[in-house]
């Protein structure tokens, strides 16, 4: 299963919010200030770190930390 803190530490590399201050309802773009490029690079980092393969159609629907975590849990569950 995805380690939530490990996940948030990766998110923190891309924004000014500390992992411990991150709330799961936070939106990547509006609340964390991700640009499109940041978000797509971040997804690549997730793939490498957690050894999962993201579906492009699915990732474009992800807006919040909770949704990203849920997507990761699902992918790792399938693995």
């Amino acid at each position: 299963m995805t380690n939530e803190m490990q996940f948030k530490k990766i998110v923190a590399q891309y924004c000014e919010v500390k992992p411990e201050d991150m709330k799961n309802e936070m939106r990547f773009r509006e609340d964390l200030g991700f640009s499109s490029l940041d978000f797509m690079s971040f997804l690549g980092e997730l793939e490498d770190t957690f050894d999962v393969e993201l579906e492009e159609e699915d990732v474009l629907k992800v807006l919040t930390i909770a949704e990203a975590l849920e997507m990761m849990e699902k992918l790792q569950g399938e693995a």
Partner: protein
Amino acid sequence: MKDYYSLTAAQKMHHNWIQDYKTQQVSGVSVVASLKAALDFGLLKKCIQLEFERYGCMRVRFTKPDEKGQVKQYIAEKETRDIPLKDLSGMSLAEADKLMQQWAYETFEGDDIPLCDVTMVKLPEGFNGFFIHMDHRLIDSCGLVVMINDLMQLYTHYRFGSEFPKDLADFEMVLERDLKKANNEKRLAKDKKFWDDQLDALGEPLYSDIQGPSVLEEARKKHGNKNLRAADIELKDLFVEVKDYYLEPEPTKNLIAFCMNHQLSMTNLLLLGIRTYLSKVNDGQEDITIQNFISRRSTHDEWTSGGSRTIMFPCRTVIPAEMEFIAAAYEIQNVQNRIYMHSNYDPALIMEEMRKRYHTPEHTAYESCYLTYQPLPVKMDNPHLEQIPQHSKWFANGAATKKMYLTVSHTEHGGMNFSYHYQTVHLKEHDMELLYYYMMRILFKGIAEPDMSIGEIMEQV
């Protein structure tokens, strides 16, 4: 012992241009940053020397090419180049600009040599600062802005006791990480598949020129191939002129608001403006490709490690005339988002694949327009300097590898600057006037009536 590293894809892009165009001039990047204040030049010199220590990319050098023409990079332990002070204060601002422009044309000749020159300058009208001239394989414009800010934070720390600037990420560590990522076979295969799939789906791209279809026709005649879809690039006469246009804050606000309200990025809106113009002047051609530069700077380390991280990828869209403006904007956004996800790939491999598939002749391209959208202004973001007037300026290296290269940036007063670099052997200022005029007409018509079709917009503007 020094460690030697391969070049990253972004560095290779500049390196290949130097090889193709046979001059290092195409890889020069220069900027002057100054303040309307007296500076302690002795202290500034010390801060510049300290910056050389902090910002590892300033010390990068390249080895002599091996028998296969490959070079490696390494980071020199110390840079010993002098940091001279030049007094241009007796000149007019225009004369000083002209002289600095000459400095920007200078080349770094040789292997294993420093590729970063910093000159302290006393400028007219009481401005004082420094001029930086570097090789683009070492740094891009975002990296330079970070460097200028860090340098001035060092200066204000020692001069006024402000906080010491935060540590910068180690260039070598980030370089190692980048190279490791680029060699990840699983990722490489995924990225290759994405780019190959695009060619499988759309076939060979089709060249579109700012001056219309005659350019492709000429290339077809030259190569004796009436089906040729790429056109020749200029290799000899690389002289470039720059034409800047300023968009006032009010219309800029409208563009930004449209982007925000429709969850669009400004890059994608600009790409739509350019591609619609190209379509208009190429008899409604639907298949248009523009080279778009992206700066691979997303994490804190990537932002503060310096280096050359800007790289271009072809943004190819096939947009029929009946598609609505807003739908076309989302289509581009969709393409761009996918490109971002695969932007670790080396674009030279995309070109290689196209040459293999379509036998594209050497020194031809499918694109005539290149775009960089730069949200970061060159401004010393330092509370100690807030009240002091600043003057900064980028200088073109005078040798363009691209027919037309547009840099769009935001100004400090809320407007936008459109800076068109164009090869004078093929283009005139009037071509840039037309391009800017129609780009604006297309964009403002589109944001006013987003449901209007691209075809109608092309007819009405």
